[in-house]
């Protein structure tokens, strides 16, 4: 049976009080190591039934075109060994061009866009490729600290093929001046890992007279090299 490598250095710490709402929610006790057995190396393989034909086009499905800069975000889902993760579900959600989410709890006094919901889904192809057509989300204020603003971002949720690989993350845009003051972005302490959350502008996937292209690859946990059969020594 495969097992998956630890990737602790990539991730934010569980406790990061600069992100204010983390203070009352992050556990205080150390995490207990869970050996990887059948339930950890398997996971939901959610496929075609979850995704409709235009679900990867967030600009579609309304009476008109949404406001904002049209963009195409595409890339590959890979595991930590560079192998494509094929047929895996990606869910994405985001604010509109004005920085407002279609959510009752969003009180930012920016306009909703009747032609934009901000939810997309897709499944990777055999090479792990995905593509979303959407609009560039706006930055928005929040109350974490004085004059706090979230850099523009798109939320992504992925399953991979195992419970160990489950990932919820955010994709950012290159050169955003709001990075320096954002505790969520900066909760990732490793510089390279932080940069890996930032898409790059890509002229090759930019469609003339239509939409700007951004490329963003997502890496899920890789497998350990196949060990000798000695997995029973972990209790």
């Amino acid at each position: 049976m495969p097992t998956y490598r630890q990737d602790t250095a990539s991730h934010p710490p569980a406790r990061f009080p600069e992100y204010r709402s983390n203070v009352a929610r992050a556990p205080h006790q150390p995490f207990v190591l869970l050996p990887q057995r059948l339930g950890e190396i398997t996971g939901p393989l959610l496929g075609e039934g979850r995704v409709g034909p235009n679900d990867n086009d967030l600009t579609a499905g309304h009476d008109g075109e949404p406001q904002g800069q049209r963009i195409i975000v595409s890339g590959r889902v890979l595991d930590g060994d560079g192998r494509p993760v094929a047929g895996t579900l990606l869910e994405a959600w985001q604010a509109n061009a004005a920085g407002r989410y279609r959510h009752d709890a969003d009180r930012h006094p920016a306009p909703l866009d009747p032609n934009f919901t901000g939810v997309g889904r897709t499944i990777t192809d055999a090479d792990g490729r995905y593509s979303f057509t959407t609009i560039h989300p706006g930055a928005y204020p929040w109350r974490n600290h004085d004059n706090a603003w979230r850099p523009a971002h798109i939320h992504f949720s992925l399953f991979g093929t195992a419970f160990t690989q489950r990932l919820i993350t955010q994709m950012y845009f290159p050169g955003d001046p709001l990075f320096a003051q954002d505790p969520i972005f900066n909760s990732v302490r490793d510089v390279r890992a932080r940069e890996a959350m930032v898409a790059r502008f890509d002229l090759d996937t930019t469609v003339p007279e239509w939409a700007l292209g951004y490329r963003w690859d997502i890496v899920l946990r890789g497998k350990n090299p196949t060990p000798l059969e000695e997995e029973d020594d972990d209790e």
Partner: protein
Amino acid sequence: MSELRVNSLQTTPSQTVGPFFSFGLVWEDGPHVVPEGTPGAFRIGGTVFDGTGAPVPDAVVETWQADQDGRFDHPDDPRGPVRWKDFRGFGRSATDPDGGYSLLTVKPGPLPVTGGGLEAPHLNVSVFSRGMLVRLVTRIYFPDEEANTADPVLTSIDPARRATLIAESVPHGYRFDIHLQGEHETVFFDL
């Protein structure tokens, strides 16, 4: 003998699910690990609490489990084809304004452990919420299971905290509260 080395890539970091995920992550059938009317199905749910004892209204609880035979319909389960082909095994419930989540499922079978023994019936659980930067992983065990006493995971945990992983029997199923922090902090795992 040379070992084949592949380029190892750094995993994309986890980020918070944020407060506004519900329009993106909520599925109508999310809480249905099994369809309504499945023999033996019950509700399992509870409340997610923060360290001040306040309910967490913007969390999402996901579960992953074996079928009644203790099998996974997955290529990495070496035991081959399964009997319950339409068993999804996966559940997702966003918390309501009172911090409550609820799923419809069946009790999974026990799982064999490589090298001998059994894992007692349990659900693997992921918890995401605003304020949390990483996924929290926990497990739900059942109160009426003798196999709990020999479960390799439960028995590895400080006895004083073990009870945080065991659901409580209630009239139509089970209750399992999740305490992110505080006196009754749930045991969370590092995978």
